């Protein structure tokens, strides 16, 4: 059984320990606590950061036990209370310390009393995948002829790769898992001028991965956190070092922080349409243009010209319509809509992770130039948008499953 070492503060008093253990058990892992001496002085001196809270000192001592290999574990889960500044500092510095001194995969989380096992499940699953498929995840080059299938809730994507290059790709809105997959597979094969029998290995990801995995006899069936991360850093040619992968989806958003292409933290939002691509789609409709044109139009407008009083899809868009009536240009209104989405993602989601550079923007919305500019403006960086950025999951699948050839 995979042993996940828990380094945490505040979990017992937040009433969430049972949720952490339940999530770990669900993915076949066990939570363990590194044994340490009550005297933390040596560990604190070695670490170089002396927090005031004893609970955080204990976390440092436990991290040192892992670094010294005086306690054996397969992976590390670091968690502290949401909104605790001291906890956030220690959480992130311990992550760096462990990544420097050990080869253990690390996943972080900042919890509230509402944290449920289901929220932690993807993180625990990713940890277990990283442990079990460590060698596979180290793969940086695709070989042979492989196909990646990403069965998402909104769209289904297929990518065929040959000798580290994309030779066929296709995407389609998801209707039923199988029908959509059959369609994108057929089109991608057509572009690649191949038959299904030519494919040496298939990898599936996304929520429909199990059904597709069974149907296509996939050699790799893997959750999207690790697969998307590999796909994104591969396409962006940022396979070494730190990065943040930002995927603003039509329905939900993901921000994943990675080290050498391996994820260590992520945040997912899906509560508010105002912080998603759907807000931009609705704005485009009100402006009477296609979403394809919207990105370019927004890129021509001024980001900060139109005042926005609400991020809400109903009230915010009403404000944008009023701005048009007041004489603002369509370009400026489109730019304001992009700013609105970027601001809300920054305020609601990116506060939960430590944003690392470069920021790699992926997914369908990364094709909207105005949104990429708005994200860059708010993060004070120029996001990297790799070619085929909407295919990261499928590319990650094709890349990783080539390890089974």
């Amino acid at each position, binding site marked *: 059984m995979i042993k996940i070492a828990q380094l945490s*503060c*505040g*979990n*017992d*008093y*937040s*009433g*969430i*320990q*049972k949720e952490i253990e339940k999530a770990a058990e669900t993915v076949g892992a066990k939570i363990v606590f590194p044994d340490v001496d*009550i005297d933390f002085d040596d560990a604190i001196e070695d670490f170089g950061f002396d*927090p*005031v*809270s*004893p*609970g955080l000192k*204990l976390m440092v001592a436990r991290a040192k036990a892992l670094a010294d290999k005086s306690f054996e574990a397969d992976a590390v889960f670091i968690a*502290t*209370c*949401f*909104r*605790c500044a*001291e*906890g956030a500092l220690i959480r992130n510095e311990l992550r760096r310390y462990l990544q420097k001194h050990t080869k253990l995969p690390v996943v972080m989380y900042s*919890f*509230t*009393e*509402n944290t449920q096992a289901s929220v932690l499940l993807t993180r625990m699953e990713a940890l277990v995948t990283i442990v079990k498929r460590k060698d596979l995840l180290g793969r940086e080059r695709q070989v042979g002829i492989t196909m990646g299938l990403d069965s998402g809730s909104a769209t289904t994507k297929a990518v065929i790769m040959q000798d580290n290059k994309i030779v066929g790709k296709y995407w389609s809105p998801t209707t039923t898992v199988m029908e959509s997959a059959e369609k994108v597979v057929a089109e991608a094969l057509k572009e690649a001028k191949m038959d299904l029998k030519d494919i040496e290995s298939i990898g599936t990801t996304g929520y429909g991965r199990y059904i597709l995995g069974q149907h296509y006899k996939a050699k790799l069936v893997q959750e999207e956190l690790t697969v998307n991360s590999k796909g994104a850093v591969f396409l962006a040619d940022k396979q070494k070092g730190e990065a943040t992968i930002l995927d603003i989806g039509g329905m939900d958003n993901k921000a994943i922080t990675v080290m050498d292409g391996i994820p260590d933290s992520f945040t997912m939002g899906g509560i508010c349409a105002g912080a998603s691509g759907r807000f931009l789609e609705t704005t485009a409709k009100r402006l009477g243009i296609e979403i394809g044109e919207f990105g370019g139009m927004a890129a021509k407008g001024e980001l900060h010209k139109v005042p926005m009083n609400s991020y809400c899809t109903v009230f915010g868009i009403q404000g944008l319509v009023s701005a048009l009536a007041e004489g603002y240009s369509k370009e400026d209104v489109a730019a304001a809509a992009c700013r609105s989405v970027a601001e809300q993602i920054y305020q609601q989601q990116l506060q939960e992770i430590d944003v690392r550079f470069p920021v790699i923007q992926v997914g369908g919305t990364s094709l909207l130039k105005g949104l990429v500019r708005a994200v860059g403006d708010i993060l004070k960086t120029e996001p990297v948008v790799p070619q085929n950025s909407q295919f990261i999951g499928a590319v990650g699948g094709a890349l990783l499953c080539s390890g089974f050839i």
Partner: protein
Amino acid sequence: MKIFIYPPNSMILQDLVERFGHTPLALAKEIDRRVNDPELDSPPMNITEIDVKVGLKYAAIEVPSGVRGRLALFGPLIDEAEAAIIVNDFPSTFGCMACARTNELTIYLIKQKKVPTLELEYPTNEEEVEDFIARIKNFLEGLK
């Protein structure tokens, strides 16, 4: 009288208060009650999401859940307190709440209550230990 002790899980302070005829408002009894509850919903200490919301009486919603969860346990003890003994600069072996922000808030709340309070430094040698115990004894015996 009911005496709130700080740190709330100090077995030494709890014992001293009992020896001098008062009732310690200590965390151990509260934890004992919880972990022996036949309905152990949330191990290890049986603190649930509802308890953490009880902590809202003592700390605002933006305060981390770990602080509110701790206050949910000993906030009611502070409410009951008729006197208090506070020890400063103690090692973890004497008592530990693990969270510096909780410590600050707890001391603030007990001081706000304006009950008779004895504040002491943790003793570091034998002479200081004797003085430490003598002062606690005098304080407790002087309470009516």
